[in-house]
């Protein structure tokens, strides 16, 4: 079914923002785009607590981050039979439990929606210019290093 929807037909929404987003609104917006949607896959990344972590600070490269996420969304639409997809990535200081990133992929069939969701989040981890710094309750701050498993997951597609 790959190639069912051309890039021109499929909807594509990419946002890089400091402010929160509303998952329900984003899903409704994507679903309103096509009556051919049978499944909507999603991944929401949140700031995971533990080990005294207080917050994450996300830095990004304005202009390049939007451009890389848009390229990634276009590639998902080329590779999977999607009706549309949405990527929203936040930056700035985010507390434990706060949403960081949202990926949505809508398709006629669930396999495409779920494959595309996973493709998008796997590639996004190492393929878009965002950097995370951890802030702990004792005041320490530490840049997160890239993980070999993330590089491998991205390369696996």
């Amino acid at each position, binding site marked *: 079914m790959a190639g069912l929807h051309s890039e021109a037909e499929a909807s594509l929404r990419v946002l890089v923002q400091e402010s929160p987003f509303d998952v329900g609104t984003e899903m409704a917006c994507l679903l309103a785009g096509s009556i051919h949607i049978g499944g909507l896959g999603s991944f929401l990344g949140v700031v995971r607590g533990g080990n005294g972590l207080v917050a994450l600070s996300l*830095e990004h*490269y304005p202009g390049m981050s939007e451009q890389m996420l848009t390229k990634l969304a276009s590639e998902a639409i080329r590779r999977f039979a999607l009706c549309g997809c949405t990527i929203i990535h936040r930056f700035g200081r985010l507390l434990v439990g706060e949403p960081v*990133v949202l990926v949505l992929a809508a398709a006629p069939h669930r396999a495409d929606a779920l494959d595309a969701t996973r493709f998008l*989040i796997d590639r*996004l981890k190492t393929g878009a*210019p965002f*950097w995370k710094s951890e802030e702990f309750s004792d005041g320490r701050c530490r840049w997160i290093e890239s993980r070999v498993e*993330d590089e491998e997951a991205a390369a696996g597609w």
Partner: protein
Amino acid sequence: MSGTVTVLYFAALRERVGRSREVVSLDGVMTVGAMLMSRRDNDAVLDAVFSGPGTVRVAVNKILADFEAPLHDGDEVAFFPPMTGG
């Protein structure tokens, strides 16, 4: 090559270099690698940062590139650590 390029540093690299942005005169250099080498010869901090451990990624005009990439007047060159989004 004459003219200038804007150089950006992000994340840990920005912190170690101590600035996020500078304008650099090309002075006849042709590539990202040559520009960086010339800067390191004239800036001990920069030299120390780029001699240190850790992978450095490069983008030219917001597109991922490598140290062989050619430079032109007005280009934007960015140096940063491996990306850790999501």
